[in-house]
C-alpha cells in the first residue's frame, strides 16, 4: 500500500507511569480503509495504546506518527456526562464541529435513532448511546475512526448491528478504523488485523471467518456470522499471575519483550492464512 494511505503509525511505543510500564514495544499502523482491532485482558494497555495513537497521551518511548491534517472521530468507552448538563442527541452531533440540520437527520436515521433526536443523551440506553456516538463520528467524515469498546454493555443483536454500521462507514467513507474489543476470541469480521496486547504485543494476525463453518453459523445465527469472526491466538508464551512471563521452552522472565532478545518479536511473524 502506498505511504500516503498511512493514517497513524506507532513504532516501539511504551508508556511508563510511576515506574511501571503500562505497555511497551507496541508497533502497528492503520491505513485508509483498514480495520485494526486491539484485544487483550483488562489492564493490558489497549486504551493506553489507542490514546497514544490519538495524541491524547504522550508515549514515554517510541514514536507516534499521524498523517497531516488528519480528521479523527473518537468514540470513547465512557461518557461520564454530568446530569446537570442538558444535552440532546441533536446537540451532541455538533459537539466538536457544526453540521447542517439535514446532514444530522440523515446520520441519525442511518444509525436508526432518528426518533431520539430530541432525547437527552443521559437517558439513552447503552446501545442507543453507541449509535448516537457513531452518528456523530460519521458526521465528521473522518479519515480515522477510533472506537474504545463500542459494543460493551450492548446485547448480542446490538453488537452485530454496531459492527455492520462500522463496516458500512469504512466501506462508504474509506476511513481507517482502530477498534478496541473486550472480547478475546470474537472480533468484528471485517477486521484486517487483530493485535493481541498484554503489556506488549502478544500476537497479531487476521481473524478467521465463522461464516464458513456450519457449526458457528448454527451457534451465532446467519446474520451474526457475517459480522463476527473468530481470532485464533498464536502465543509462544504465557502470562503468569505474578506478572512474569513463561516462554514455550519453559524459561521464565520478568518482561517478555525486553529482557529476552531471543523471544522478542519472534511471535509476530506467524501466518494466519
Amino acid at each position, binding site marked *: 500500500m502506498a505511504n500516503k494511505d498511512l493514517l497513524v503509525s506507532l513504532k516501539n511505543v511504551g508508556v511508563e507511569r510511576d515506574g511501571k510500564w503500562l505497555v511497551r514495544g507496541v508497533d502497528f499502523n492503520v491505513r485508509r480503509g483498514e480495520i485494526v482491532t486491539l484485544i487483550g485482558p483488562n489492564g493490558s494497555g489497549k486504551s493506553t495504546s489507542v490514546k497514544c495513537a490519538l495524541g*491524547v497521551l504522550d508515549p514515554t518511548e517510541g514514536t507516534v506518527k499521524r498523517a497531516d491534517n488528519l480528521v479523527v472521530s473518537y468514540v470513547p468507552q465512557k461518557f461520564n*456526562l*454530568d446530569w*446537570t*448538563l*442538558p444535552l440532546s442527541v441533536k446537540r451532541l452531533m455538533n*459537539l*466538536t*464541529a457544526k453540521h447542517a440540520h439535514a446532514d444530522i437527520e440523515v446520520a441519525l436515521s442511518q444509525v436508526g435513532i432518528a426518533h431520539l433526536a430530541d432525547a437527552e443523551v443521559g437517558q439513552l440506553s447503552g446501545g442507543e448511546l453507541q449509535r448516537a456516538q457513531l452518528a456523530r463520528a460519521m458526521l465528521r467524515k473522518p479519515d480515522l475512526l477510533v472506537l474504545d469498546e463500542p459494543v460493551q454493555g450492548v446485547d448480542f443483536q446490538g453488537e452485530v448491528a454496531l459492527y455492520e454500521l462500522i463496516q458500512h462507514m469504512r466501506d462508504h467513507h474509506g476511513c481507517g478504523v482502530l477498534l478496541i474489543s473486550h472480547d478475546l476470541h470474537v472480533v468484528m469480521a471485517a477486521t484486517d488485523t487483530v493485535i493481541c496486547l498484554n503489556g506488549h504485543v502478544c500476537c497479531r494476525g487476521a481473524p478467521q471467518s465463522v461464516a464458513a463453518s456450519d457449526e458457528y453459523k448454527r451457534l451465532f445465527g446467519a446474520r451474526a456470522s457475517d459480522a463476527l469472526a473468530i481470532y485464533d491466538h498464536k502465543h509462544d508464551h504465557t502470562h503468569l499471575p505474578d506478572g512474569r512471563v513463561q516462554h514455550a521452552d519453559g524459561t521464565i522472565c520478568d518482561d517478555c519483550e525486553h529482557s529476552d532478545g531471543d523471544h522478542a518479536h519472534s511471535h509476530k511473524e506467524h501466518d494466519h492464512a
Partner: protein
Amino acid sequence: MLDDFFVRAMVAGIGFALVTGPLGAFVVWRRMAYFGDTMAHSALLGVAISLLLNINMMVGVVAAALLVSGALLVLEKRGVFSSDALLGILSHSTLALGLVLVGFMSWVRIDLMALLFGDILAVSKGDIALIYGFGALILVGIAWAWRPLIAATVNVELAQAEGMHPQRARILLMVFLAVLIAVAMKIVGILLITALLIIPAAAARRLSASPEQMVVIASLIGVISVIGGLNLSLAYDTPSGPSIVVAALIVFLLSLSPIAVIWRKKRKAS
C-alpha cells in the same frame, strides 16, 4: 441616576449576575463548586499580600486565585491526597493565612466584614465600570471559546482527540473565575461568591433543554435574585449580600417545584 447608592448597587449586581450565569453553569457542569470556593477563599490571602506589598488589590487577588488553582493542579498530579482533601486544605488554609496576615498588619485597617460578606451598597461608579468592563471581556471570551469549552466539559479525551484543546479551555475558565472573584468581591464578599455562581445555574437546569439555554436562563435567574434580594434588604433592613443569596435560593426551590416542570412542558409544546 448613578448618584443614588441603591441604583448603583442594582446596576452593579445585575452586571455581576449576567456574568455568573454562564461561568456558574460551567462550575456546575464540571463539578468545580468546591474548586470555585477555594479560589474565592484565596482572595483574602490576595488582599493581605497586596496590602503588604502595596500593590493593586485586584492584581493581588487574581494572582492569589491563580496561584492556588495552579498549586492544586500540581498537587493533584502527584496523586497522594484526593482532590477533595486538597481543596479542603487549600481553601481553609488560604483563608486562615489571609486573616492572620491581616491581623499582623496593625497599621492597616480593613473592613473584614465587607470583604467576607460584601458591601454592595458601597459600590462606586468606578466599581461599576470595572464590573461591566471585565464582565463583558469574560462573556466575549466564553462565547468565543464556546464549542471547545462545551466539548471539553462533555469528554476531555474526545475533545483532545478531535483537536479542541481541552487544557486551554480549563485554563481559560480558571482565569475567568479568578477575574470574576476579584471584581465581585465587593458585591457579595468572598464567602458568598460561589453561591451566586452555583445557585442560579442549578435553578436553571430543570428549565433548560440545551447548554445554550441554560446559561441564558441562569443569567436571568441571577438578575432576578439581585433585584429581589436588594429590594428585600431595603424593605427589611437585612444585609444585602446574604439577601441576594436568599433570593437565589428561593428561585432554586421554585425550580424544583411542579410549576417548573409544567413551564418547561409548555415551552416544549410551543
